[in-house]
């Protein structure tokens, strides 16, 4: 309170700004747009990255062929991808989501590839001894071994996606948290920027505690507790 200043708004001021923006402005539609973009990019990147990672982990020839490209993908500046896609496809939803997917996909693929490479040959042998069908092996052996890597890819990927979606919205979009923050930047509206940021962080935390952690607890309950 003592430090209250136009550039350093109090938490109370930020809180009341959130309420005001939600009731009288576009906070909720903007959050919705950003979440939709992040969600769509996340699902696409996870699905494609997981499929690619499994192929790379199981097929050494394909891994040799694509590993350099994967390295390029991992180190490609995110902003370059977004600019190129905006030029090619225009300032469209597809361009934004595709740019996020292209940035995220190599990270998912590389994580899943490592998981697949680490599959235990012992369990394969057990499956052969039990004469389990392919689908049974998939369910009993492969998927459970892959789940920790999928969760790791999801968590690291999601944190990356939250950030780059906002950057790409600043670069070119017709709404969303990033777009709105860039408008507020032009007016040095720090209270509005912090209100949007706080609301966004609250959504991310809700997702972490309401979705990711319960899922993680459930599917990894077989793991020994860390000492």
């Amino acid at each position, binding site marked *: 309170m003592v430090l209250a200043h136009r550039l350093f708004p109090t938490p109370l001021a930020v809180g009341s700004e959130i309420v005001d923006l939600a009731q009288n402005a576009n906070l909720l539609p903007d959050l919705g747009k950003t979440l939709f973009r992040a969600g769509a990019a996340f699902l696409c990147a996870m699905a494609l990255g997981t499929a690619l990672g499994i192929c790379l982990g199981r097929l050494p020839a394909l891994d040799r062929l694509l590993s350099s490209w994967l390295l390029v993908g991992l180190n490609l500046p995110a902003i370059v991808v977004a600019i190129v896609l905006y030029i090619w496809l225009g300032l469209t939803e597809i361009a934004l989501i595709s740019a996020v997917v292209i940035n995220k996909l190599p990270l998912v693929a590389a994580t899943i590839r490592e998981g697949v490479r680490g599959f235990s040959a*012992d*369990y394969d*042998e*057990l499956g*052969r*001894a*039990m*004469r*389990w069908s392919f689908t*049974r092996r998939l369910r*009993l*052996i492969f998927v*459970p071994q892959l789940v920790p890597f999928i969760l790791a890819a999801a968590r690291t990927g999601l944190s990356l996606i939250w950030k780059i979606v906002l950057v790409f919205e600043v670069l070119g979009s017709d709404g969303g948290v990033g777009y709105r923050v860039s408008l507020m930047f032009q007016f040095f509206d720090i209270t509005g920027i912090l209100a949007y940021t706080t609301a966004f962080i609250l959504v991310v935390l809700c997702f972490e505690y309401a979705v990711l952690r319960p899922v993680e607890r459930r599917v990894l*309950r*077989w*793991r*020994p507790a860390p000492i």
Partner: protein
Amino acid sequence: MAPGPDLNVTVAIKSFRNGEPIFRDFNVAIAAGSVTAILGPSGIGKSTLLRLIAGIDPVFEGSILIDGTQAKLSPPPGFVFQDPRLLPWLTAFDNVQTAGQEMSGNEARAALARTGMIDSADLFPHQLSGGMQRRVALARAMALNSGLLLLDEPFVSLDRELVEEMHDVLSTLLDQSAPTTLLVTHIAEDAARLADRVLLLAGRPATIVADIALPTPRRQRTASVLENYIALIGASAQRS
């Protein structure tokens, strides 16, 4: 477990990846319901032999005849590996139930009960001791109920007390259901306590250098009889 079938193993040739033969013109007939221990030095091919019989390793020339036919045993043979090899993401109960395609909960529970593990049915493998994990692995193999049980050094890395406990559990199970059993071990005492017959393997390619019949029934072997046989098996192993 159903009473076991006759087993006739013929391996014309089985080689390592480098082409060196492990078995050549190898034949062995195992009587239905018997317990045969296979002893021999490390790397001689004992575990390979079990893998051929189980169908885990199908790359060899020869045949595995079960009750005189080459048809695959269905359900597959119960296999106990050197390590318990339980799926760590499944409880003890689920590990046993996965053994069979359509195994009922009651069958899985009965298998766990026979190995004294019913009270730990809901525990995950990391919550079980080494000995308990072995019991669950044994329950899983027995639950297949195929009549053929393949044990690949099932007591390795257990302390003596646990080994004796496992001998008792296994002995009881073998008495109850008489599966045809092959026990790979390098410990003469395991063979003398559990087997009706001991085959000693040696050489490369491996051949049977000693075939020792033990007195039956197992339970009536006295301490001195056991000692004599342990000494006999040990001496034969040293000679080979």
